[in-house]
């Protein structure tokens, strides 16, 4: 019998990095080493601890990383609590990759890119950012606007400081919600910061974050002159199968797990407002 | 009766006593009636219905309706008033926001019993002197009215309204019912026979939760069977054990609070006699702790919230009845 997508692979957690007080990044490899499967930036995988539950997480490592996959996971429910309690060497089950991806090889090619992320929303974008950094010649300018509640809540802060900020042609703008000691950067919410920075409207925008942030940022972008066709986002709803059959993650007739999670805002605008 | 009800409802809407009316709405066929809320006289004229098929107990909807602004008029049959009383006692409804008109009770009809006779293609049903004249696309059929009566009405416990603001028609009495007959029959079987009986019944269960969701006593915000943290949440009986467990817990949770309105059995798509489980608890409570009718009043303590120091011991179960 063929392998069924509902039957998962085994993955071994080979490294756990504490990013913020409630976000950890897990490195997952196949038991014999190497990656479990190839993916494209923006795609997701179902992680599970048998007996606890299964949930969809975006793959945060870039496909250009050929050794392992990474998942940045925020503690917010039953399964994630268990995942956070894991130690290195723990096996988990993984299946995927699921969903579409950011059109990095088609529509985004040759474009100036603007990434806007809030909080854990950086996780799915990190895959794209690192992908385009590794294939620098294919893309124009890169700008990242990233905000979080506080300095401690900035996911992948070390990577941002040491790698992204030191790259040529990558502009990183960080902001936190409230002023705090040891922070001399920008203070304020992401939507306002985007307006302050007034990015060039030739850029293609990739945005991910809490729904409320997306809502206001999108409004701000429109004020600046951006069109909906220029803005991509990635969605999340409750999922069980990951292949558009279990019937719960639909927005209108589109399944987030299969037709998404990446949507362009003009596509999203045609769907009913139920997410 | 239907006409008088519509007239009275219109008056109460008109003089501002109530803002909404909860009752029953006509369907596609002669029998598929939906509980509905009416807000205008036009809606009442168009769709309000009260006939032999308006069996649905609307009291559970009052949990939601009575929390809205403005009074709601509810037409309640005797059995429904018990449910409302129980809900009032448990502070699940705002009784002050409900205007209850007591209306005569059943016996109501069970369309499934008519269909079980092989009568199909039904386009109209008339009751002529307690003979049902059923028009079908295959010609007219007849059957005695009492053969099509709902089980819950066939063993009616009371025709008395226990709470109302106004009464339409005559007040009835509490009846001497035969409602424990089947429970007793089962009690007198052997343990193996009982087991076989319930296996054949409960194995039909599709876990649609209709019995739970229709039950006026089941008003938890989050049911233990839906709560992933309870450890027993499930959506399908993956094993015969889970069929038993669901129905034991469902019945146990309403033990002492179940007014025996019979809705659970009425809505079961698989015709499982679920009311027998509830009645078993009622019968046991009556015999162990004294006669108790849930919903008869709004002040008494439920039997499981109470005790006396000389209650019988659990071993009584081992000492009586058939092994």
């Amino acid at each position: 019998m063929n392998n069924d997508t509902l039957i998962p692979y085994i993955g071994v957690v080979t490294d756990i990095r504490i990013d913020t007080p409630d976000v950890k990044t897990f490195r997952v490899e196949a038991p014999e080493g190497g990656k479990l499967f190839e993916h494209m930036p923006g795609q997701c995988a179902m992680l599970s601890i048998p007996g606890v539950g299964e949930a969809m997480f975006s793959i945060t490592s870039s496909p250009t990383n050929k050794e392992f996959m990474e998942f940045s996971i925020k503690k917010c429910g039953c399964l994630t609590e268990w995942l956070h309690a894991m130690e290195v060497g723990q096996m988990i089950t993984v299946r995927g990759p699921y969903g579409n991806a950011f059109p990095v090889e088609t529509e985004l090619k040759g474009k100036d890119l603007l990434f806007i992320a809030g909080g854990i929303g950086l996780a799915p974008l990190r895959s794209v950012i690192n992908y385009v950094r590794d294939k620098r010649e294919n893309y124009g300018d890169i700008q990242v606007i990233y905000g979080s509640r506080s300095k401690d809540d900035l996911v992948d802060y070390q990577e941002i400081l040491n790698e992204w900020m030191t790259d040529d042609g990558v502009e990183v703008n960080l902001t936190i919600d409230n002023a705090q000691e040891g922070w001399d950067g920008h203070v304020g919410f992401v939507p306002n910061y985007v307006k302050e920075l007034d990015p060039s409207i030739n850029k293609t925008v990739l945005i991910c974050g809490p729904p409320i942030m997306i809502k206001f940022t999108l409004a701000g972008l429109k004020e600046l002159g951006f069109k909906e066709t220029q803005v991509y986002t990635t969605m999340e709803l409750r999922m069980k199968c990951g292949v558009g059959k279990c019937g719960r993650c639909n927005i209108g007739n589109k399944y987030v797990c299969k037709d998404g999670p990446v949507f362009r805002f003009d596509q999203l605008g045609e769907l009913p407002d139920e997410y | 009766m239907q006409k008088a009800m519509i007239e009275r409802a219109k008056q109460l809407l008109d003089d501002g006593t109530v803002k909404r009316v909860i009752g029953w709405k006509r369907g596609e066929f002669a029998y598929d009636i939906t509980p509905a809320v009416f807000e205008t006289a036009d809606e009442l004229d168009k769709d309000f219905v009260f006939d032999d098929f308006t069996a649905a107990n609307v009291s559970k909807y009052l949990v939601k309706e009575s929390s809205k602004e403005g009074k709601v008029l509810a037409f309640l049959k005797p059995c429904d008033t018990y449910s409302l009383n129980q809900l009032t006692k448990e502070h699940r409804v705002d009784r002050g926001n409900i205007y209850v008109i007591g209306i005569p009770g059943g016996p109501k009809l069970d369309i499934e019993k008519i269909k079980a006779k092989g009568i199909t293609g039904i386009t109209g049903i008339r009751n002529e002197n307690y003979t049902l004249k059923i028009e079908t696309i295959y010609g007219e059929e007849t059957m005695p009215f009492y053969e099509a009566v709902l089980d819950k009405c066939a063993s009616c416990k009371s025709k008395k309204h226990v709470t109302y603001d106004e009464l339409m028609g005559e007040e009835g009495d509490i009846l001497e019912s035969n409602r424990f007959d089947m429970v007793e029959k089962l009690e007198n079987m052997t343990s193996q026979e009982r087991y076989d009986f319930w296996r054949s019944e409960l194995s039909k269960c599709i876990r649609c939760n209709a019995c739970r969701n229709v039950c006026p006593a089941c008003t938890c915000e989050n049911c233990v069977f839906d709560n992933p943290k309870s450890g027993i949440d499930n959506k399908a009986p993956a094993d015969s054990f889970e069929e038993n467990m669901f129905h034991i817990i469902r019945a146990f949770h309403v033990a002492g609070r179940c007014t025996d309105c019979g809705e659970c059995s009425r809505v079961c798509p698989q015709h499982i006699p679920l009311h027998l489980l509830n009645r078993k608890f009622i019968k046991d409570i009556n015999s162990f702790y004294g006669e108790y009718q849930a919903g008869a009043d709004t002040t008494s303590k439920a039997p499981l919230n109470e005790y006396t120091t000389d209650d019988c011991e659990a071993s009584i179960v081992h000492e009586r009845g058939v092994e």
Partner: protein
Amino acid sequence: MQVNDNKDFQPLIVAFCCNWCSYAGADLSGTNRLNYPTNVKIIRVPCSCRVNPMFILRAFQRGADGVILCGCHPGDCHYTSGNYFTRRRMTLLFSMLDFLGIERDRTRVEWVSAAEGAKFAATMNEFTEAVRKLGPNRRLEDLRCRKQ
């Protein structure tokens, strides 16, 4: 009727014991070196009233062949009235299980005080023997959990 003593059958007995009386009673039977079967697995609960019907059912689901609930004697509850509620609740539950055709000897409530070590041991011996005679729990088991 077929006589079957199920002599080789080792039933799994789950005993819910209240912290204040029965658990201490079990302890006492141990310190007094009284024997009771190793089939009995004790689960300590703060009060017999803590045991809700689901506990009993889930014990059966997970492979118990008999479930016994021990608490303080009526009137002696550490929380004054817990065991009175237990009594009503378990009476109704056991009656329901009996009604569903589950063998009634698989369930029991027994009042055991902290001083009744001997009663605890005797009760467990007797109950285990009764369940052994009944054989494995087949009417209220979850096949998925059956021991191979």
